[in-house]
């Protein structure tokens, strides 16, 4: 066998192993969500459900609130799903708007000095648990505890550093000469933004939005600290029912996990081509 073939075989071997490692948990969640309760925990574990069922989905998607009484869980996910969707979309859009504008003005006008993006990044380094304790006291005073506005504001602040750093890379690629030429020809700054900068960074905006949306859609610690019953998000719901030791409802939990994962993964597949180019954080010289 030639060296070339040996390398190709080696490559497929390694990649297949990692693909299997990646797919195993995903597959297990998917099939558990289609299993009757009798098949959740068996020995040997059942890799293909005998009678696939949609009962778990029907259960978690029915209306009503999640309850946990006498060791029996009733999980419903419509309200947390809506809450997560609303909070994550609003905070990600706001962060994208503010962070994108800031990245542009820093790249072109040096807003905030040469070290400004680094200062912003260091904000992301503060562990959320550090601010969680005083945040509750502060939010109680402002009457923002357990409100959409409260959670959205926090998420805008925590996702801004990523927006700024990702957008810097995309703005670096907009040719400065093009903008100068447009200005010389009499285009206003808004016109330059709308006709040159926005179209050239459009894919970057989408990639950045997806990434911070994932972060905000997934966030658990701050959500569980700063909300109570009104703004319960999906990660909170999962956490609440996981910490119950008895009567675990594997099937409905797997259904919720699948529902929480699907929209993001579909979105990810749609923009996969851009994803592969969009994660260099300005750290490669073109």
């Amino acid at each position, binding site marked *: 066998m030639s060296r070339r073939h040996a390398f190709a075989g080696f490559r497929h071997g*390694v990649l297949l192993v*990692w693909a299997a490692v990646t797919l195993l*948990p995903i597959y297990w969640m998917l099939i558990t969500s289609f299993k009757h309760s009798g098949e959740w925990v068996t020995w040997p574990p059942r890799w293909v459900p005998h009678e696939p069922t949609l009962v778990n989905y029907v259960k978690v998607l029915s209306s009503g609130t999640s309850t946990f009484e006498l060791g029996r869980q009733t999980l419903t996910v419509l309200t947390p799903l809506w809450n997560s969707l609303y909070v994550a979309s609003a905070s990600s859009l706001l962060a994208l708007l503010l962070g994108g504008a800031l990245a542009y003005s820093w790249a072109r006008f040096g807003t905030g000095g040469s070290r400004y993006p680094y200062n912003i990044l260091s904000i992301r380094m503060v562990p959320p*648990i*550090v601010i969680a304790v005083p945040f509750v006291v*502060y939010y109680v005073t402002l009457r923002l505890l357990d409100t959409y506005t409260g959670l959205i504001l926090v998420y805008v*602040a925590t996702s801004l550093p990523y927006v700024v750093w990702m957008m810097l890379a995309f703005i670096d690629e907009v040719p400065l000469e093009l903008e100068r030429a447009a200005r010389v020809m009499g285009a206003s700054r808004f016109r330059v933004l709308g006709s040159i900068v926005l179209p050239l960074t459009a894919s970057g905006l989408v990639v950045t939005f997806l990434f911070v949306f994932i972060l905000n859609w997934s966030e658990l*610690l701050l959500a569980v600290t700063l909300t109570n019953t009104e703004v319960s998000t999906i990660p909170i719901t999962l956490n609440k029912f996981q910490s119950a030791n008895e009567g675990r409802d594997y099937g409905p939990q797997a259904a919720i*996990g699948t529902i929480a994962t699907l929209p993001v*993964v579909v979105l990810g597949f749609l923009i996969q081509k851009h994803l592969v180019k969009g994660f260099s954080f300005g750290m490669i010289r073109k």
Partner: protein
Amino acid sequence: MFKWLPFVPVQGLFVLLLLPNALLLVYLSLLSWRITRGAWWAAPLTWLDSFGVALGDERFLWALARTFAFAAVAVPLELGLGFGLALLCREPFRGRRAYGTIFIVPMMIVPAVVGYDLSMLLIDQGPFNQVLSLLAGRPVTVRWLSDYTAAKLAVIGADVWQWTSLMFLIFLSGLSGLPQDPIRAARVMGASRWQVFRYVELPLLKPIIAIALVLRSMEALKIFDYPMLLTQGGPGNSTETIAIYLWRMGWEFARVSHAAAMSLILLVVVALYTFIAIRVLHRERRRLVEGSV
């Protein structure tokens, strides 16, 4: 006007959200206040007592050390695996797209979902032990969620499973953006594949390795979701990270002042790390912009 238009709301948000919190954190740490004991502004000042308690609390110090230890194992693994997979996927071959699609899925899943998904896989008589038994050819019965060592591995494994995907994506991004001229020049001058990689590509990739390391390690030090959903910090305290311990301190034990003092100590430790990380990033990016790479 364009210079300051985005600056004002961003800076305003940070100042309004973070400054009062920082002051409040310091003030709370100087008090002796529990949530169960009336209003915080009426609590007595005990100055540095809480810090004394914090530094004398072995469980706190262990949680801190454990968090850094988890990150020290998980982050290099994620970087190494991500880099290796990206290298194998850089050139076109049959199936490349399929592999790439599969490899980036984990980062799109809610970490809480990953945590509880793995808690299904890792039960004592679960599919993971079954697969291990098949591979080993004899029954494997590791108690992943209730053994002191195995539970640590499970938490680290969850982190590696999820975040290798982001590292893969970052490195694939970096490799696909490499400038081709120096590589071609080196090939023409007769450099071997290995020499091109070692002396041309690796130096060009240094900045992106730096940012991947900084981003990943700063998130890894916040680890909360996986141990919370997999083991609730157990068995014993063997997977209790600093985020989980402080969370319990504040809300389960209601010792808010002690939690605040410990938070400040954690903040000082993280600030030290941040200072170094930012310096490295700044140096790498300045080199990049000035073109001395």
